[in-house]
């Protein structure tokens, strides 16, 4: 529920209760005032009637004034009473306030009743109720108008800032553009948000810089280790232990080097906003990359089939496209079984690569994460698909990975509007 609506709801509930109390208060006080007033009037009238009787005038005017001569002397007390009388003319009962006195005038006993027409209690009550309901309705109308106005004017910067906050991403590397407001709370929120996003960006940048620097700093010692080991290799040790240790040093330095390069690439993908793009015929590109891998495919006696549409063009960064396609194709060879199969297809914007292979031991989605591999091997860094995924995300390319009928199937949709 929106804040404004919540506040309004509370406001309306409380107002309604107050109005209810008001309704009763007004009703009872008006009722009291009216009966006080009419009672006073009735008393005055009765006095006047008595005076007239003394002068011998019997001023009767039923049903408002009734004078009855009594046989016996009564000493009843004067009494006020509410009553209803059926009126012939109106054919309905009307409410009256009556005052009855017993007087002895000129030695005759009289019962004098004076009446005055009363406002009916229901009428009074409903009149007050209607007035209050109208006021309440007007209040609601005004409140909703105010709400709409405030939502549009006062809350606008708040909602806009909220939208910016939702769209804020550390990857995009730009700070939030926030709107000023003339409401103190919103302004305080704005400053807090601006400061928070600045801080987060700064931390993020320094973290990225650190990992970038670290990777580059690592290159030199790795280079020294590799070079020294290769220099030692020239000695042609006859001791098999020494040469196998040396080979192991070189292999691991190589692995470290490759790992580092992949991490540099991943960091670069995360920190770079824009890579220059060009129009590329996707089918040709795929053919060329497959061609590069001929030796690897042959050495494993893999059968490769392709069905590539040659005219489909993409707008892409050349290097990144090569990296993504190479990773996918190289994976399909590396994780294949000897004498296995690869099928590569490009139909419109859909690129599919399917290869035979062992059943995956993990949830397929895990392979898109860093450092996920079936088994540790010299040639698997566990970064290949993470890099592909990152590149796909950058260009808004949908990527799916399935294992169907003994085949690993990866599908990329190069058309972002479809899917």
């Amino acid at each position, binding site marked *: 529920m929106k804040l404004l609506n919540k506040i309004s709801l509370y406001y309306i509930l409380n107002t309604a209760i107050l109005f209810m109390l008001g309704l009763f208060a007004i009703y009872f006080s008006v009722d009291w005032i009216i009966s006080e007033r009419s009672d006073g009037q009735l008393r005055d009238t009765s006095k006047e009637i008595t005076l007239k009787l003394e002068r011998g005038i019997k001023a009767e005017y039923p049903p408002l004034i009734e004078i009855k001569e009594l046989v016996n002397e009564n000493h009843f007390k004067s009494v006020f009473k509410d009553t209803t009388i059926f009126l012939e003319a109106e054919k309905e009962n009307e409410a009256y306030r009556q005052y009855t006195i017993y007087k002895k005038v000129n030695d005759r006993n009289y019962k004098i009743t004076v009446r005055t027409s009363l406002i009916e209690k229901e009428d009074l009550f409903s009149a007050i109720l209607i007035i209050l309901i109208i006021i309440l309705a007007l209040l609601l109308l005004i409140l909703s108008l105010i709400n709409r106005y405030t939502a549009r004017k006062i809350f606008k910067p708040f909602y806009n800032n909220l939208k910016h906050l939702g769209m804020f991403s550390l990857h995009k590397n730009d700070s939030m553009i926030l709107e000023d407001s003339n409401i103190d709370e919103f302004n305080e929120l704005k400053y807090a948000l601006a400061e928070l996003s600045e801080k987060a960006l700064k931390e993020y940048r320094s973290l990225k810089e650190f990992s970038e620097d670290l990777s580059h700093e690592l290159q030199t010692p790795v*280079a020294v280790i590799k070079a*020294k080991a*290769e220099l030692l290799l020239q000695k042609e040790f006859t001791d098999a232990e020494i040469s196998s240790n040396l*080979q192991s040093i070189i292999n691991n330095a190589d692995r470290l*080097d490759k790992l580092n390069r992949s991490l540099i690439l991943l960091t670069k993908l995360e920190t770079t906003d824009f890579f220059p793009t060009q129009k590329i015929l996707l089918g040709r590109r795929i053919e060329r990359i497959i061609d590069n891998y001929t*030796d690897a495919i042959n050495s*494993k006696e893999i059968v490769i089939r392709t069905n590539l549409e040659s005219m489909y063009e993409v707008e892409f960064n050349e290097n990144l496209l090569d990296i993504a396609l190479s990773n996918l194709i190289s994976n399909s060879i590396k994780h294949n079984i000897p004498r296995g199969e690869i099928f590569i297809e490009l139909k419109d914007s859909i690129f599919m690569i399917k290869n035979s292979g062992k059943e995956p031991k993990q949830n397929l989605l895990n392979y898109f994460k860093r450092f996920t591999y079936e088994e540790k091997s010299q*040639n698997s860094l566990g970064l*290949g698909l993470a890099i592909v995924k990152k590149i796909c995300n950058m260009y808004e390319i949908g990527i799916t990975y399935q294992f169907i009928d003994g085949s690993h199937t990866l599908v990329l949709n190069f058309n972002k509007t479809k899917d």
Partner: protein
Amino acid sequence: MKLILIEDEKDLASTIASYLKEEEYLIDKAHSYSEANEKINLYEYDCALVDLMLPDGNGIDLVKRLKERNQQCGIIIISAKEAIEDKINGLNLGADDYITKPFHLAELNARIKSVIRRKHFDGGNIVQLNELKIDIDKREVLINESAIEFTRREFDLLLFFISNKERVLNKEAIVEHVWGDNSSAFDSYDFVYTHIKNLRKKLKDSGAKDYLKSVYGIGYKFTLK
């Protein structure tokens, strides 16, 4: 041939220098921008290896200076950064090649030779070794003056071996040079053996001597001895 090696990491510089020593180059080492600048002003070099990130200056400026001093000087940039902008910038300023750290010494050696060949032998870019004659630009191999067909990989292998003759080459360096980035698709480097076997057979069948020797557990060596 006079080389200058501009590299602030002394350990790496001395390792490179001792690897290259056998090529009978005269090697000057410089460990800082100012030292390199001084040497460039004093001497003329046939080839320069320049690290871009130096503690007291940018190697790019040294590339410019080297070019101004001697158009014939072959320049190879050594960089820890695989930044394409640096690469393009360096090559635009007159550098001949660009190699990223870490690299195989054999790879560096082959690149130096290639740069020197391009710069200092006018006319054909040709390597001659006994009965072998390789025209690099035409990608042609002549054995005893008759042309022999080699596949692209075999040609690359042969040239890499000749550039690193009398050196032990491990499989990693060979695969990386010949197959480049595609090497990651291989489970093992055993297939190298098949290619080298074919190369050896072709050389032998065409009347060349058997120069290729395998070094147990490590790789191969091209030797005239």
